[in-house]
């Protein structure tokens, strides 16, 4: 079977693992041909890729949506061409009205920031803090994961349990380690006392860690949280710099999406929604994740 | 000063001065031009002749001084205003659009249109082409293909297009900065004819030229610039080439006042 895959972007660590999970899976099967395209974070490009797949007559399409609210048009395009469609990693807005030959495999983004922030909150309490000041490093502001994870932080801090946490400032690093490093250094130059950094992703968390280390700050005295559980992050956690991150089963999602697509291509029925849960990673359970992502 | 609006003075400058950084290119120029008069401006290279023209036509803003034109004091904000007030100029650097063809250049800024739809007016291309051919015939220049862009014209062809443009549109004052410098024998003769026609029609003109014969042939009065100053202002009848040269070179000095 010919399967067309449109990924939101290629130069994203997490999505790369997901994509490779899919490719690995396909290699093990005979007669499965994957064609993976890079939408370069452009909704319109992605929609056009689906139409190009249709013009090439693929048997099924897997989409890792750039923008989960743009999926209606994609579902329509695939339905018009009578080609099965599977969304992966990001939950489409039209999830409840998907046609029969469409499905999605995703995680609930609302969990990631929540798990992260709750762990940070727990660590503060463990250290006996009555008051904790944190900096928040956001991802790209036009990205929904960044918006959602930031909202998760606000939501957790709004609960009475963690209301002792105060956000000094939140700024964006555009997911980028260098920008996070510069941002953190700028914050350090204000001389404000702070107890932790909550970042929307691991790269930003690592950037902040590097900046703090350059300023000779004792990493034991600060709590740093990230999301993604990348190899770099796990190494940073082993080194005692990073305190919390959140694992999302990228490879599992990729493989699951391919499975669903193949079944739909054969005309079989599959579940409309498959949730793959996020998992919190701490020094305590890190060994479980070292070989993943 | 006398009420300028009642006299027959077309253009008058007082103390016109222009500095570029430390370069004093033009210093206190007092100049008058009367109705129907043709005045020549001569002078060394770098004497400030073109600078003088650029101040009058507001291509640059003067450092100080005043200008009266057509009966009232003027402070043009730019060359457009000068042109709208009635000053047509052939600049030394020609001011042609290299990528446009000859008719487009001739009518640049005052295209003939079929319908008026503001900026989106439809051009009357046929008319402009015909009118261009007619205008160029007057300058005797030969241009093999009018649709070629100005970029591909010879030096003299470019100059003739610029002159044809100035001569085609009615105006109150014509200024020509070395119009025949690049022209051949025939073309020069034709352009001189054009200037004579203007004289007959009573249109005033300022002619900048290094050509002594031409100046004595065409003009009533000669103004000499030297080192940014007007050093002589002489009626043609009261002077000769030798005299002018000595003012240009500085052999004679002191502002020579007009006899008449």
């Amino acid at each position, binding site marked *: 079977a010919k399967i067309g895959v449109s990924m939101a972007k290629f130069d994203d660590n997490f999505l790369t693992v997901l994509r490779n999970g899919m490719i690995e899976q396909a290699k093990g099967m005979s007669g499965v041909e994957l064609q993976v395209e890079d939408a370069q974070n452009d909704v319109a490009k992605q929609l056009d890729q689906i139409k190009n797949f249709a*013009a090439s007559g693929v048997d099924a399409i897997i989409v890792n949506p750039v923008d989960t609210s743009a999926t209606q048009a994609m579902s329509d395009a695939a339905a018009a061409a009578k080609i099965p469609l599977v969304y992966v990693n990001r939950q489409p807005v039209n999830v409840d009205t998907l046609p029969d030959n469409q499905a999605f495999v995703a995680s609930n983004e609302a969990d990631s920031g929540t798990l992260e922030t709750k762990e940070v909150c727990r660590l503060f309490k463990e250290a006996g803090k009555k008051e904790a000041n944190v900096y928040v490093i956001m991802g790209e502001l*036009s990205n929904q994961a960044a918006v959602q994870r930031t909202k998760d932080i606000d939501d957790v801090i709004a609960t009475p349990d963690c209301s002792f946490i105060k956000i000094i400032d939140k700024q964006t690093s555009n997911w980028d380690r260098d920008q996070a490093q510069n941002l953190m250094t700028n914050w350090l130059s204000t001389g404000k006392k702070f107890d932790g950094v909550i970042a929307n992703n691991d790269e930003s968390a690592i950037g902040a860690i590097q900046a703090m280390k350059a300023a000779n700050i004792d990493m034991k005295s600060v709590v740093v949280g990230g999301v993604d559980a990348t190899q770099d992050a796990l190494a940073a956690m082993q080194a005692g710099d990073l305190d919390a991150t959140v694992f999302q089963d990228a490879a599992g999602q990729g493989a699951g999406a391919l499975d669903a697509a193949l079944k739909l291509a054969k005309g079989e029925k599959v579940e409309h929604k498959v949730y793959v849960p996020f998992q919190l990673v701490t020094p305590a359970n890190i060994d479980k994740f070292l070989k993943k992502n | 000063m006398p009420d300028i609006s009642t006299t027959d003075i077309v253009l008058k400058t007082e103390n016109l001065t222009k500095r570029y950084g430390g370069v004093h290119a033009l210093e206190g120029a007092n100049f008058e031009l009367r109705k129907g008069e043709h005045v020549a401006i001569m002078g060394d290279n770098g004497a400030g002749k073109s600078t003088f023209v650029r101040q009058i036509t507001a291509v640059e803003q003067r450092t100080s001084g005043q200008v009266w034109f057509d009966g009232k004091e003027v402070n043009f904000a730019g060359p457009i205003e000068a042109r709208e007030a009635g000053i047509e100029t052939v600049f030394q650097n020609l001011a042609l*659009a290299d990528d446009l063809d000859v008719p487009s250049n001739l009518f640049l*800024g005052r295209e003939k249109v079929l319908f008026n739809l503001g900026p989106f007016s439809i051009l009357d291309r046929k008319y402009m082409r015909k009118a261009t051919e007619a205008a160029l015939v007057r300058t005797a220049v030969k241009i093999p293909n009018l649709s070629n862009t100005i970029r591909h014209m010879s030096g003299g062809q470019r100059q003739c297009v610029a002159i044809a443009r100035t001569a085609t549109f009615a105006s109150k004052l014509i200024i020509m900065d070395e119009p025949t410098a690049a022209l051949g024998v025939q073309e020069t003769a034709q352009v001189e004819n054009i200037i004579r026609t203007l004289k007959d029609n009573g249109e005033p003109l300022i002619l900048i030229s290094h050509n002594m014969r031409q100046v004595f042939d065409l003009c009533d009065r000669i103004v000499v610039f030297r080192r940014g100053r007007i050093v002589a202002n002489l009626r043609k009848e009261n002077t000769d080439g030798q005299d002018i040269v000595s003012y240009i070179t500085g052999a004679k000095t002191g502002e020579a006042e007009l006899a008449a």
Partner: protein
Amino acid sequence: MAQTSHGVGGVSYDARKRTWPAEFNVFLALVILVVIFELIGRVFLGDSFLFNTRSDVSGLFNEARLQIIILQVSIVGIIAIGVTQVIITGGIDLSSGSIVGATAMIAMSFAQVATVNGNPNPKAMFLAQGWTDLPVIVPVLVAIGCGLLAGLVNGALIAYTRIPPFIATLGMMVTARGIAKWWSKGQPISFPTDSFAAIGKGLMPVIIFLSLAVLFQLIMTYTRYGKHCYAIGSNEDAARMSGIKIANHKILVYVIAGILAALAAVVLSSKNLTAQAGMGVMYELDAIAMAVIGGVSLSGGRGSIIGTVIGALIFGVIISGFTFLRLDAYYQEMVKGVIIVGAVVLDQWRQRMRALRG
């Protein structure tokens, strides 16, 4: 020797030996590209790029592919029309992609429905104000207003402060992207009304693109506006001394570019049924590349809308051709860069040959 003497005479001129229109080269590049894809397809894949090889579909050509080739470049193509006239005047517009983003966000928030599947629209910006289910003219006018405003700022900056267009529009690029993100604090805006969704449905983007292209080709060729664009791009000083109102003209040029970007935003968000702050990133570069591939000179004064349309088609063929060849996505970008350069090299090479040989 059949020689005629044109214009007002002079050296002999052979009217039969006309020079090719510059667009011809670009068209040639397009044809070469299509033939290459067709050949590779036939030889290596046993499939055809342009022709129909499926039994379940009728027709000589692979119509789905012909459509997507032009459909996928229609939106950037609309921007490229505006960018073309900007470049012809000797300017550049880096802000068009960001204007698309900001305009899509703002316009879409006036095109939302009140209820989705029976529930209140979760993404509606102005639900509280009741500004939902508005007639389609409202978001379109809002978009045009946004584009006009952005273009006005660009144009006024360039015309009055005389800063380089590169900087003025770079500033607008950063600012408009900021506005796009700020408008809904990064949230996408979705669920438009059916009438708004109709704008970008099916082949509508293509129709809008081609109509605008024809309109502007006529404007650039036959109107005073077009003539002045070329004059300013060719020699701004000359144009000024000739009495063209440079400032007004430039403002108009950038306003038109802004409005075209805004129209592109309307079509884009309608086609995708959503608006998000990241929309239109890098569109400005694609639009400029389309224009330049189409023969528009970046130093101003030369080019045409027809050329830009062909440039856009080259882009479309490249994108579809890659998918057709199932080229690994990693190689696609590399090859795309090479093809962009190749198309311009071919054009340049033919022009030089002509200039040298005469």
